[in-house]
């Protein structure tokens, strides 16, 4: 603990522990936030790591009791901008204005929602076996629509349609679950 206190010189041990918990618990949300702004990039993990570093460095700026995700998203936003800066605008899928609009909307969305990862896990469990397998293949490391199509002897379009329907089904399930939780 003494060591961690040295890393977070301005935080008390309990605050440090709390901060580490928040940082760890919200990794998937931060990943989703960054991914939404860098849809075509292979560098999402790098930007997430840089964001984590900045969050650690600025840990004393976070006010306990305020919305951690909202604060972390703001930090992540500037890391995304820095990524675009360093990689030139030519490589941008989205323009700066669109990034800004998406960042604002997604910050509100992610900061205001309960644990979506948990909800999504529950929805995945409700999928038919074949759909679950398709999702697992698509999201396994190196997985793609093309590779699944090749493996299954189907057309890319057919696999794409199947994935679209499964995602739609998951989307509906997530929204219903969230609405149910918020209504409780």
């Amino acid at each position, binding site marked *: 603990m003494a060591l961690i206190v040295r890393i977070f010189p301005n935080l008390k041990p309990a605050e440090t522990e709390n901060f580490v918990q928040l940082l760890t618990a919200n990794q998937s949300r931060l990943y*989703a936030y960054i991914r939404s702004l860098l849809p075509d990039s292979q560098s999402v993990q790098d930007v997430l790591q840089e964001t984590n570093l900045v969050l650690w460095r600025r840990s004393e700026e976070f006010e306990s009791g305020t919305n951690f995700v909202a604060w972390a998203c703001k930090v992540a936003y500037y890391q995304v901008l820095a990524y675009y800066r360093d990689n*030139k605008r030519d490589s941008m899928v989205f323009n700066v204005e669109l990034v800004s609009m998406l960042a604002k909307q997604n910050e509100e969305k992610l900061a205001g929602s309960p644990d979506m990862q948990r909800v999504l896990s529950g929805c995945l469990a409700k999928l038919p076996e074949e759909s679950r397998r398709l*999702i697992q293949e698509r999201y396994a490391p190196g997985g793609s629509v093309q590779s699944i199509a090749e493996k299954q002897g189907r057309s890319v379009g057919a696999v794409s349609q199947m994935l679209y329907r499964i995602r739609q089904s998951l989307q509906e399930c997530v929204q219903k679950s969230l609405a149910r939780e918020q209504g409780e």
Partner: protein
Amino acid sequence: MNQNLPPSNQEQRNPEEIISAFIDGLLTDEESQAFLKRLESDESARELYLEMMNTHSLLQWEEGQTEPLPDLFQTPVEANVLKPAPDPANESARKQLLFTRYALVATLAACLFLSVLLVMESQPIQAEARLDSGDGVPAAMIIEEHNAVWEKTGWTQDVSKPLVPGWLKLKSGRTLIDFLGGTTIALQGPAELGINSDNRAYLKSGRLAVVGTSRNQNFTLTTANLAIVSQSANFGLLVNPDEETELHVFEGSVQVSPSKSRPGEDIDQQPASVEPLVVEAGQAMILDSQGQLQAEQVADASQFPARNQFTVADPPGDIPAIDFAAHEVLPYSFQDGQFDLPTHHQIIEQGKGIRLWGNAWKKVEVNKEITPNTVIEFDFRCSHEGQIHGFGFDSDDQYGPSNYVFQIYGYEDRPGIGQHFNTYTGTGWKRFRIRVGRYLTGKQRYLHFIADEDVIARAESQFRNVRIYEAPTQP
């Protein structure tokens, strides 16, 4: 790539279908452009995109595409067994557990790494053993010399190039050395100095002074019997031929520990580590060859080389300052106003100065041939700190990693931005005189000035009395 795709006419595809195809990289260029236009203009389309993209990202996270997390905890046998399709809920819990374990392992690894660093920083250091010029990574550079005579042997390095970890032997004269970690030392011959890294050195014999320090990195200086850790301290150190050591602290404070090992001795035979001794500004201590305190004194800066002894000479004759009113001040590269942030400049002091604010990188055409002796001199002040305040030269208008930028102020410490002169303290005018030719040479068309703040564009920089000249030879 797009063969066998569903109908490409977006009129026939609902928005979810288009987003799903976008996520899978299956839209044609034309479809992508239409989709992006829709995103820009339609808030509900953005809302839908974010919902689907977040689900996609969480699935990536859930299914482990983002990190090779589980392998850390799998035995080889487990890894080779073909597993039945797991229940996603259990799978999720397992992955969360694995992630937690992974995070724990990563944290422990980081703690271990930091522990090692802290031990290295705060405890005695076996400096000589760490000298290794094999990797050739520059650690320091000589920026000024006065009558310096170097001894070139098989074990010393070529001082005309950036210094890599290795030995320097200064027979006489004095020299100013910038460590790339941000510390500057003045070395006075005769002296033998080992460069361990960009923030660590070993004084075998002779006299030196730490005359400039990094705000961000500690600097560790070791001798045969001492390890001195400094952050933002200026101090002098003398090691005489009998390995008696004198330490004089002029500004700040340093932590002193006995060296764990002396060259050639067995580490295990050394005494146990002790709490570091803090030596404050104004204090001096003399230690014998065993590291035992012999006497305490008042620090005496006159015994050591000082930075002002290395000050680049005044301009030869009357070198006119740049008249900004007579120059066109233009945006520099893509940096000026980047991210559509505000960028402004104003000519001040009847053309003798320029003020920048916002997220501003402004250039003027100077067309200078930078030689190893070229110096730039200017006054700088700042009323609002941004990420980077500084300047740089460029032969064209294309900023890139090869362009050397001199940072003189600012809270950001980015790789590739020179930190050696990042010494402004945030109050009033400060004069900088920098031998830029030690860092870059050749024909430079532009000189640019920086008030960089990519976050909220509130940086402010003022430069005045900017002169570029060839340094006269000094005795």
